[in-house]
């Protein structure tokens, strides 16, 4: 029964598109959480059935995915279809020849669903290597219930957030914090306030060096320290005690004792779902006094790419188009990767009412935010590592803010020179 | 039916240590040949070379006219009984006995009749279903012999097979093995035996001939009586017989009035018969040897005696061992305990007569017996 249906579907597709593709065995790899895994596997089944291909899934958490992908690409064992983080494109395909040219597959993939600007962001040296799946950015989210309990309003500026701290301690106890940031969040938080003060992104695209002076960065770092000192956020050390980096796994997050965070809009539901006390709301970007810009951290989130070694790129392109542009695939994929960049997908999801209004609200904040263009080098693994581990040393009191700023700038400049 | 020929066989180990120095030995068909010598004399090495368990550096070994140097042990027509019996611990006695035949894929009926015969011969029928660890020492020993016999080899090799048994059992097994050898011979089966032991009693009681070895060389090959009576050198003389032959330095004088032997400050006239036996005519330093049984307390008034002092008397029951010092040489004298006057011995000085027909004289440098006649 099913076989016949598949056969018919294959025939229909073959006739309608005029591209004769045989049933192919494909692989697709991605990272994510459980709900993304479930949705994507379902979508692959549907799209596979539609075109008569079988696609075996390979998925992991985000940790270690870059390593794995690099290993596979170096070993020539990568999947046919890959979810590639946007900042990784220059790592894998510096000259546009490390991944398949999707432009050459435009007879199968309907590229009209993306804007020129979006396609440009997925291209390396003018070759379209990755199709942007969504645009994402960091967004503030607060547990409204906790703020109500503390008797203060959800903050819209850093000043209000700092002011809320005493009320939290008084009403909810010493172990309650109106906000939380640790490890990577701290990097992005320091970047944001520094950008707000200077109006510049970390990397100056003109000179390919760090745009900030050490004094400017030191101020940003001091700002973080102030949040810790006032008890607005947990110290780096204190946050490490739980033995896990994942805020959503923590009981303190679920019960509202950690009442806010600064996270990707696309992960909004991951943070909202576990909350048992109160509920999460997305909030506009908090700014410092005298901010030049909001300093929104916005970027194409991830892209889908096809391996240049794929035995059947046409089949892979069919699956890709199905996932991103065709109703069945769109419905199955849902909003598990944030709000889709593809116009067709966005329209279809809106029509189906599948767009989580809070996710939409979070994304709207990101899209509306102002700020300089974010360089992909912000997320170069070594740049990140330098930034984060130096901040850690600062947080443990081993460096002064100024020393930390200098080390970070030196280290990143060194890396940028290699790139 | 085969004998064993060993021709100029040498063994040199990787570290250039020469263990066997050009040994030649003929073992006749049906002969019970014992290799005996102190530990480290390479007797076991020689046996293992015959078996094929050690490589042969030079020379040739043949079994029944067939050179076996390059044959694996299983193809040499030999069977071996090991010191520790080497029964396969994971196999029952039946399987232990039949292992070799099974490897040769002999028919089952033949295996069973062979085992039946051997187990009756050695009285191990009730043991067939046991594991080696359930056997006593003597039983394991019999099974090990059975495993050798069942192969119907051309040559049997025994590597100190009795050394792990207690004294009583050892004595019993000696008799048993000897009679087994006779029985095999009577049945017309091949019964050439090479038997390694360090125990000279075993060698004397069991061997048709005995090959005495020392430091990788053959000292003498002869039947037990010859070996005892006519040792070719001081080593054999000292090795064979209990208690050991008394060996001492002496000086041979030849004069007009006859020959004499000077021991320390004492002098003993030698019979002309002794002189007749000498193959080396010169007077001078010699090593003299006399077995403890051939020297005796002198009868009253006897002449041509040696004077010694008794240091110690050991009562052995039927016999008495006297530890005597004669001219600074330690002697053992064996005498009948009946009629021996212990009080007299404790007085100190005693006189002893030497049975001159049993006196041996050796070249002090080469150790060769120069009194064997020609």
């Amino acid at each position, binding site marked *: 029964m099913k076989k016949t249906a598949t056969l018919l579907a294959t025939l229909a597709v073959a006739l309608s598109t005029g591209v004769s593709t045989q049933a192919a065995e494909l692989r697709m790899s991605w990272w994510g*959480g459980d*709900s993304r895994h479930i949705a994507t596997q379902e979508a692959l089944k549907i799209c596979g059935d539609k075109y008569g291909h079988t696609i075996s*899934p390979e998925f992991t958490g985000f940790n270690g995915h870059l390593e794995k992908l690099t290993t596979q690409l170096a070993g020539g064992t990568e999947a046919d279809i890959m979810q590639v983080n946007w900042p990784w494109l220059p790592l894998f395909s510096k000259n546009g020849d490390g991944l398949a040219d999707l432009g050459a597959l435009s007879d199968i993939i309907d590229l009209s669903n993306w804007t020129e600007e979006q396609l440009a962001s997925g291209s390396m040296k003018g070759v379209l290597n990755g199709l942007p799946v969504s645009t994402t950015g960091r967004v503030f989210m607060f547990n409204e219930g906790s703020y109500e309990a503390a008797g203060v309003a959800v903050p819209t500026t850093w000043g209000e957030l700092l002011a809320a701290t005493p009320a939290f301690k008084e009403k909810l106890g010493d172990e309650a914090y109106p906000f939380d940031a640790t490890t990577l969040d701290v990097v992005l938080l320091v970047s944001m306030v520094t950008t707000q003060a200077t109006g510049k992104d970390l990397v100056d695209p003109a000179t390919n060096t760090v745009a900030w002076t050490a004094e400017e960065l030191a101020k940003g770092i001091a700002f973080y320290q102030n949040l810790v000192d006032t008890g607005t956020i947990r110290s780096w050390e204190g946050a490490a005690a739980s033995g896990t980096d994942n805020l959503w796994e923590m009981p303190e997050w679920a019960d509202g004792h950690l009442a806010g965070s600064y996270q990707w809009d696309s992960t909004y539901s991951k943070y909202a779902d576990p909350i048992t006390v109160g509920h999460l709301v997305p909030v506009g970007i908090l700014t410092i006094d005298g901010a030049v810009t909001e300093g929104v951290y916005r970027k194409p989130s991830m892209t889908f790419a096809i391996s240049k070694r794929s035995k059947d790129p046409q089949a892979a392109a069919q699956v890709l188009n199905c996932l991103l542009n065709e109703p069945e695939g769109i419905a199955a994929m849902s909003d598990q990767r944030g709000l889709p960049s593809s116009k067709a997908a966005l329209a279809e999801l809106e029509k189906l009412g599948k767009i989580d209004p809070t996710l939409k609200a979070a994304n709207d904040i990101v899209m509306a935010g102002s700020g300089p263009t974010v360089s992909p080098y912000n997320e170069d693994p070594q740049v990140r590592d330098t930034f984060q581990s130096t901040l850690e040393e600062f947080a443990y009191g081993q460096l002064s803010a100024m020393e930390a700023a200098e080390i970070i700038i030196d280290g990143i400049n060194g890396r940028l020179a290699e790139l | 039916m085969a004998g064993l020929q060993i021709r100029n066989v040498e063994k040199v180990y990787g570290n250039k240590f020469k263990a066997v120095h050009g040994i030649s030995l003929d073992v006749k068909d049906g002969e019970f040949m014992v290799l005996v010598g102190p530990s480290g004399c390479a007797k076991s090495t020689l046996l293992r070379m015959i078996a094929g368990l050690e490589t042969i550096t030079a020379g040739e070994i043949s079994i029944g006219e067939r050179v076996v140097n390059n044959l694996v042990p299983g193809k040499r027509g030999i069977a071996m009984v090991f010191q520790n019996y080497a029964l396969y611990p*994971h196999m029952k006695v039946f399987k232990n006995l039949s292992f070799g035949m099974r490897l040769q894929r002999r028919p089952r009926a033949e295996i069973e009749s062979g085992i039946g015969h051997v187990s009756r011969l050695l009285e191990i029928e009730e043991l067939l279903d046991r594991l080696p660890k359930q056997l006593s020492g003597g039983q394991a020993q019999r099974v090990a012999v059975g495993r050798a016999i069942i192969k119907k080899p051309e040559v049997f090799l025994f590597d100190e097979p009795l050394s792990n048994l207690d004294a009583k059992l050892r004595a019993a097994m000696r008799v048993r093995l000897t009679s087994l050898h006779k029985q095999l011979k009577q049945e017309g089966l091949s019964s050439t035996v090479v038997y390694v032991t360090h125990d000279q009693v075993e060698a004397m009681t069991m061997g048709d001939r005995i090959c005495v070895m020392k430091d990788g060389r053959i000292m003498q090959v002869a039947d037990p009586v010859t070996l005892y009576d006519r040792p070719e050198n001081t080593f054999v003389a000292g090795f064979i017989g209990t208690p050991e032959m008394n060996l001492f330095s002496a000086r041979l004088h030849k004069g007009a009035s006859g020959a004499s032997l000077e021991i320390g400050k004492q002098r003993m006239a030698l019979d002309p018969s002794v002189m007749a036996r000498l193959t080396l005519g010169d007077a001078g330093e010699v090593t003299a040897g006399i077995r403890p049984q051939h020297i005796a307390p002198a009868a009253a008034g006897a002449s041509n005696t040696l004077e010694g002092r008794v240091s110690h008397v050991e009562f052995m029951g039927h016999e008495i061992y006297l530890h005597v010092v004669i001219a600074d040489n330690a002697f053992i004298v064996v005498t009948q305990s009946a009629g021996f006057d212990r009080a007299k011995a404790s007085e100190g000085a005693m006189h002893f007569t030497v049975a001159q027909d049993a006196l041996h004289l050796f070249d002090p440098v080469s150790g060769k017996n120069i009194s064997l006649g020609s």
Partner: protein
Amino acid sequence: MTTTALSAIALETERTNRMTRRLQRISAAVRYLILAGVGLVMLYPLIWLIGASFKTNAEIFADPGFIPKEPTLNGYINGWKTSTPYTFATFFWNTFLIILPKTVGTAISATAVAYGFARFEFPFKKLFFATVIAILLLPNVVTRIPQYLLFRDLGWLDSFLPLWVPSALAGDAFFVFMLIQFLRAIPRDMEEAARVDGANTLQVLIFIVVPLLAPAIVSVCLFQIMWTMNDFLGPLIYISSVDKYPISLALKLSIDTTEAFDWNRILAMSVLALAPSLIIFFLAQKQFIEGISSGGVKG
């Protein structure tokens, strides 16, 4: 001496005896106390793990005891299903597919190699034996990178081959070494008797050496199974497809991708991951202990 003095001595002796006995009893009690205390500390984490895997999420961090108040199987049910299209059974099966050729290969190759080293003379024997010791001491991080490149060039990435082929070629020096030590302790007479009985060296190996060495070989297999089960870095580097994941990677995957706080699920999966090792160990603990005792001591 008077009778009173005598009885005083007797009393004194009696008293010392009693004291000695009491001291002995006390020292035995102290020993048991230490042993039991240490044992409890040693095993409590595991006991807690098993208990906690039946707890509800809320209870896991609420109470240090291991007995769940409201026992639930949810952790196991969700854990078994996993977030992948595969159940935990697939990962067990994958682990098995690695373990089987690896263990069989190790047993055969390590036995043959140990036999070669312990019973034969051949050119360069000392040199080769020195390499066994050297590999024992060589940290494998040194060779990991070129090995990875090698397997990449062989096209073996994302397959089980890199995980078992080196072991099947006697690559685990520890096992070779252990078997050599065992074999050296076994007298050669039995093998020589078999040679005299007409067996060739291969027959000696199969009919005599293998049965004699069987306990050691079983130990080797058991250790190999355990170590393979625990191996994480190997699969981490070489396996990329989820459908080929062994248990260790699957467990790590489930930790990384879990959403919300499904602690009991992770704990339940940890218990499942440990269960085969625990079961094998308790079935064959004697072999393990004998294996490690003799292998180590004779070294």
